[in-house]
């Protein structure tokens, strides 16, 4: 009570509802305006890939940042979502959105099954088990040629059916802009849902488990159930990203879901700021666009990528969020004192 300056905000800051609403509004505006500014095919493609990667990073962050489960196999759920939905469409003629739901559900279930192991395992054991899971899924996609056509891949996957209301075509997803709006809107929705979730008592429960599982158990929290739940949600979100990826790119090869992709997604979460939702969004955007901007230096661009990841961990482990807070504090201290 003595000095208001000592009452520092907690690390997990609750932003006031008004500024949060303004933030949402700005994000929605950015989504609407971006494809209008970047009006060539190259940048519109990049924007959609950004949105897909944001979705992947959000899913992993929910597992890793909010329940502390070290998942090194996120690429597996991404791949499962992509292949299950595409195979349902191509082999069984199931309509896109039906296949989408099935792909998401399948990836989510796979995540829950894997995390049933996680309940007994901690830290590095889970890391290796999930890595192993990703290797197995990749090898199955590569070797089950009668189903997935292996390294030859599946070609000519069509985009989602056009949105038609009252006989009028509202959005034809052959159009890059329309596709971007679809993925971005879905990603925005996932962000809102996850944001509500982590602010609810469920979020507090998950954080308690991450910080100290034994203490959480002593408060009557069933850590196992919540960890399986979080893993399922994160994996399902990755599944959704996979469905969008397949219909966006139009071709599906197992190499897109190699273990290196899981490390990519992990890098997005870490560089952005693990354990916050906004951090991974910017981490994903930065790490999707950075290699594109560095295309001029050829093979060395991934060297820069690796170096950036290492340096962030060494010197700024809180990622972009930590950097932003640091700048913000500096700015506030520098301003006139009340």
């Amino acid at each position: 009570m003595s000095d208001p300056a000592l009452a520092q905000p907690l690390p997990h800051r609750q932003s006031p509802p008004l500024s949060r609403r303004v933030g949402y509004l700005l994000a929605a505006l950015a989504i609407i305006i971006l494809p209008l500014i970047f009006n060539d095919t190259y940048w519109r493609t990049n924007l959609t890939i950004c949105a897909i990667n944001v979705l992947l990073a959000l899913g992993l962050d929910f597992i890793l940042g909010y329940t502390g489960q070290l998942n090194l196999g996120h690429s597996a759920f991404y791949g499962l979502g992509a292949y299950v939905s595409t195979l349902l469409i191509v082999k069984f003629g199931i309509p896109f959105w039906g296949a989408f739901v099935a792909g998401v559900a399948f990836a989510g279930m796979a995540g829950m099954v894997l995390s049933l192991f996680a309940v007994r395992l901690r830290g590095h054991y889970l890391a290796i088990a999930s890595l192993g899971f990703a290797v197995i899924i990749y090898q199955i996609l590569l070797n089950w040629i009668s189903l997935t056509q292996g390294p030859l891949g599946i070609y000519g996957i069509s985009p989602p059916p056009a949105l038609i209301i009252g006989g009028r075509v509202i959005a034809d997803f052959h159009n890059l802009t329309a596709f971007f709006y679809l993925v971005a809107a879905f990603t925005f929705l996932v962000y809102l849902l996850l944001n509500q979730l982590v602010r609810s008592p469920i979020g507090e429960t998950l954080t308690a488990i991450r910080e100290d599982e034994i203490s959480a158990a002593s408060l009557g929290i069933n850590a196992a159930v919540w960890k399986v739940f979080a893993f399922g949600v994160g994996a399902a979100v990755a599944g959704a990203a996979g469905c969008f990826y397949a219909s966006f790119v139009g071709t599906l090869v197992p190499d897109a879901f190699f273990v290196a992709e899981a490390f990519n997604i992990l890098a997005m979460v870490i560089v952005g700021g693990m354990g916050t939702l906004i951090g991974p969004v910017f981490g994903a955007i930065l790490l999707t666009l950075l290699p594109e901007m560095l295309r001029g230096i050829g093979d060395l661009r991934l060297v820069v990528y690796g170096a950036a990841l290492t340096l962030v961990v060494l010197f700024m482990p809180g990622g972009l969020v930590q950097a932003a807070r640091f700048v913000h504090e500096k700015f506030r201290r520098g301003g006139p004192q009340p």
Partner: protein
Amino acid sequence: MTTTIVLQQAINGIVLGSLYVLVALGLTLIYGVLVQINFAHADFVTLGAFAAYFFMHLIGAGYFLSIGVALVLGAALGWLINASIFTPLRRKGNELLPLIATIGVSVMMQNLMLAWFGPIPYAFETPYSSQVIRFAGIFVSWQNVIIIAVSSLTIALLYAFMKFTFLGKALRAVSQDRETAGLMGINPNQLIMLTFVIASALAGMAGAMLAPVLVLTPFAGTSVIVKAFAIVIIGGFGNVEGTILAGLIVGLIESYTTQYLNPGLIDIVVFALLLLMLAIKPTGLISERREENV
């Protein structure tokens, strides 16, 4: 006829297995003292292989000398990665950060090698690859004899070092309880450094011997390390005997899967075994009791 095939594949499996053991032992030793995973371990294997290749082909040195060069290079890299990443991050006490930092180092090293050496596989021939001993219908190349001899000798020396020397005992003490070992006058930091150097030297050396067996590209180490992780868990994290046993088992699985099923299924079989192991006995084949502080 069939017994010959079974025996032949047993030898191939043991050759592969003993190399996997060398790589996995490094991981398990580091895990023992630090409870940390070094992802860049894979690239020490690859760099060891390339170092031996260039030392032999450009300088014209002998194979054994090249193995020695790979070993020294591995040791130097291990020292570097401990000093630059694990030591500064240890103070932060986070189990995740060093792992991610080494993933970054690994991406960096692989792509540096890619820029340098290109994506086309190198053919690593040693003078011993073509000399074959024939015995009761089984073929064993001198290369394989050398691999088995050198790796058994190395493993035996390491085992003796851990069991009978003062430093080895100190190392085991640190891996059992770092703080108490510190109170007994052992400097944990020096021993952690020593562990890193030994572990990475083993990786570099294994690389020089794996090179003729592998498809030598900048990403060669990744396929080995993924199996080494599986071996470390199947054997029991931090357990030397378990790692040796599991390494040989995985080598045999690989050769028999190639013979009787399909080479594409190797990783699936190995990791199915890993997941099965985690489901039944997560502490590994030979479990070590580890107390956890609450």
